């Protein structure tokens, strides 16, 4: 298989034959391939999409569906690490990952990722429905083929377009419950889609050297810091009102609306600081706050929905 061979050659550490020794991979290395931290955010946003969607879902089927979404996200992470092993090896943040470190052979990661990807899609189709399974399959394809293999190494807009992969999980959750797509799920998609650029570009501001060494055309590398800071502010200004859209459209209550507007104001305030300063303090604060922003927004959306059900109001 040419892809396997190519990946193996790219990932092989200099001067080492990755397959010469029996595997030293531990269970933890295979868990690391699944990118558990990314997976946790995927599962959480999918859970919110699943719960706030109209209709009833058997809890066991809901749990199995979330498990499938988690495994599918992990599979995408493993395939990403398989393909990116060469650039991971030259970046400080990723050099210790299982493949560049030589603990997992590239072919093993590829097989692991493909097996989990296929398994998660099929089981989700059987447990929930084939619309949800189809979106999960497309998400894995989009992350691996469109983002990892194509966009990441070819355009500074890589994480803008590629961010769609991370925005699909609430739509999958919604489809699990309803068997289709709704305006509400598209709004949740848009929130994560417009959240991704300021989140990743804040990180890339202090990792620009890493990306430059690896030849990844991240915005600060290609367009410079000033332009990146400007783009962060623009996307934050779009994100702030967008975050409140579920409330504006009547899909969520005042609790969510107030939280979204408050957190959105926080994002914009930090983005303005990032734009004005020349150091990295603001960028690091924005990166941390952006994670909190998404978590709080989805958590409050979930709480608001449960509260609405409890009080018997229709929002």
């Amino acid at each position, binding site marked *: 298989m040419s892809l396997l061979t190519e990946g193996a050659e790219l990932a092989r550490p200099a001067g080492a034959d990755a397959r010469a020794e029996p595997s030293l991979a531990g269970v933890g290395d295979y868990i690391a391939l699944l990118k558990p931290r990314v997976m946790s955010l995927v599962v959480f946003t999918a859970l919110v999409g699943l719960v706030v969607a109209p209709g009833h879902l058997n809890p066991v089927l809901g749990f*199995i569906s979330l498990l499938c979404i988690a495994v599918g996200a992990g599979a995408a992470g493993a395939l990403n690490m398989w393909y990116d092993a060469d650039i991971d090896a030259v970046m400080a943040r990723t050099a210790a990952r299982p493949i560049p470190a030589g603990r997992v052979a590239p072919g093993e990661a590829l097989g692991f990722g493909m097996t989990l990807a296929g398994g998660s899609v099929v089981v989700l189709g059987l447990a929930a429905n084939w619309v949800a399974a189809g979106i999960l399959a497309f998400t894995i394809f989009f992350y691996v083929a469109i983002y990892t293999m194509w966009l990441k190494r070819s355009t500074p807009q890589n994480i803008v377009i590629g961010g769609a992969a991370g925005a699909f999980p609430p739509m999958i959750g919604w489809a699990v419950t309803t068997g289709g797509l709704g305006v509400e799920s598209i709004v949740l998609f848009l929130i994560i889609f417009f959240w991704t650029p300021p989140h990743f570009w804040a990180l890339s501001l202090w990792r620009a050297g890493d990306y430059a060494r690896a030849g990844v055309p991240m915005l600060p590398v290609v367009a410079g810091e000033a332009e990146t800071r400007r783009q962060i502010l623009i996307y934050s200004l779009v994100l702030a009102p967008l975050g409140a859209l579920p409330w504006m459209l009547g899909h969520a209550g005042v609790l969510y609306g107030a939280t979204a507007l408050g957190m959105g104001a926080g994002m914009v305030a930090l983005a303005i600081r990032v734009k004005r300063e020349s150091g990295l303090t603001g960028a690091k604060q924005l990166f941390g706050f952006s994670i909190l922003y998404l978590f709080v927004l989805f958590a409050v959306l979930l709480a608001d929905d449960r509260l609405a059900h409890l009080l018997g109001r229709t929002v």
Partner: protein
Amino acid sequence: MSVMVHDNGHDDEDGVVLTDEQKRRQRARSIAIAVALGALVLVFFLLTIVKVGLHPGRLAP
């Protein structure tokens, strides 16, 4: 490939001999695979029970 070499310089005909660390990690991987397979069996069992419970008529001849 780790191959045991005797004092007389000939390779051991038993082939690859794993170090203790390699054996320990191989065992851990085997246990993880067993747990994953067990979980898969449980998932399919629960799926079947729930699906049959939701649509009992589908089993009617």
